[in-house]
């Protein structure tokens, strides 16, 4: 099994089973979790297959955190089948994330996307070599930063009530609902609904712009993401803002305090910002060209 590990690779524990050496009978791949500085410690965890120890494959001062995986479970075809199995997916995705987060506690890491598998450690080394500058730069850039998720939720009912209380047009229509004849009350209610919904939307857009503006002053970088539908969030409130933020570590406290202040200020309007993190910098890691790591 030593023969399968190139001389530059560090291998703390022998893998639990011996891969075939013939390329035509390939039974294992090298699953990558992320890229660390080669000096970084890496977690003594078991890989996504549930049994193989983590290893690092070192090149150019970079270490690819990896573990071997049986291709009968992680090869292209089996993986396709697993994609339709939410339980398998959730378990493996969480496992991947746990490994990346554990490593992240010790050193900067460029997280790989789920399911990045190489057929040989040489292929991994080649990828590291050919993208070394970009990857090293990424590690240096991200070393003092954290990724945070920010979502903004709008409680539309509450916002509408708030606006009816403040907006003269809405206020008058709201009063008309009760005072007029049934026919006129109906019309007033209908007009109120239409007008209120337009005003609520406009106010939400303002709140989003204003939140983004305040947030962008506290972050180094920011990615706008499509808001998730209610059936996905499981919340009554509508998600109207969805961001991935890159925050300098020494700014995180101020960043979160700013969100808290924001929430107090706009609570009456039913708008709430929610932060999660720190995440591995999934949204801010460099992109690596696949062409560069293909075997010729």
């Amino acid at each position: 099994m030593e023969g399968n590990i190139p001389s530059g690779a560090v291998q703390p524990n022998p893998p639990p089973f011996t891969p075939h050496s013939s390329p035509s009978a390939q039974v294992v791949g090298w699953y990558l979790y992320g890229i660390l500085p080669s000096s970084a410690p890496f977690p003594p965890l078991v890989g996504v297959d549930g049994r193989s120890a983590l290893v690092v494959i070192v090149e150019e001062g970079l270490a690819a955190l990896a573990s071997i995986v049986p291709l009968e479970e992680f090869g292209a075809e089996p993986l396709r089948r697993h994609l339709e199995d939410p339980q398998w997916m959730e378990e493996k995705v969480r496992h991947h994330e746990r490994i990346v987060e554990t490593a992240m506690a010790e050193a900067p890491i460029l997280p790989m996307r789920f399911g990045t598998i190489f057929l040989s450690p040489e292929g991994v080394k080649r990828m590291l070599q050919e993208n070394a500058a970009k990857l090293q730069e990424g590690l240096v850039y991200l070393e003092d930063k954290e990724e945070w998720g920010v979502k903004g939720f709008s409680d539309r009912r509450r916002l509408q009530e708030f606006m009816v209380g403040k907006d003269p047009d809405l206020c008058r229509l709201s009063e008309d609902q009760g005072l007029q004849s049934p026919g006129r009350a109906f019309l007033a209610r209908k007009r109120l609904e239409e007008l209120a919904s337009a005003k609520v939307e406009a106010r939400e857009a303002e709140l989003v712009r204003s939140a983004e503006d305040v947030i962008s002053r506290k972050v180094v970088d920011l990615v706008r993401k499509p808001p998730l539908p209610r059936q996905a969030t499981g919340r009554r409130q509508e998600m109207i803002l969805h961001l991935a933020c890159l925050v300098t570590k020494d700014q995180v406290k101020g960043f979160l305090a700013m969100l808290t202040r924001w929430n107090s200020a706009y609570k009456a309007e039913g708008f709430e910002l929610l932060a999660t993190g720190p995440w591995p910098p999934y949204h801010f890691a460099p992109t690596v060209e696949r062409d560069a790591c293909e075997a010729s």
Partner: protein
Amino acid sequence: MPAKQADLVKYRQITLLETLDRVLNKGIVLVGEVTLSVADVDLIFLGLQVILTSVETAKQLGVRREE
């Protein structure tokens, strides 16, 4: 503060969605065509984006999980 422990726990389901979204859709992405044959290439890039195109996926996984 919004990120205090109780809040983060309360929003666990969102965190799962976020985890799926990040791990499946982001991170270092090896750009290129999907390779389904493992025989003649050095790298298998499992092109999850073909099936797991977006947050839709996370949504389905998340929703199904809660059932």
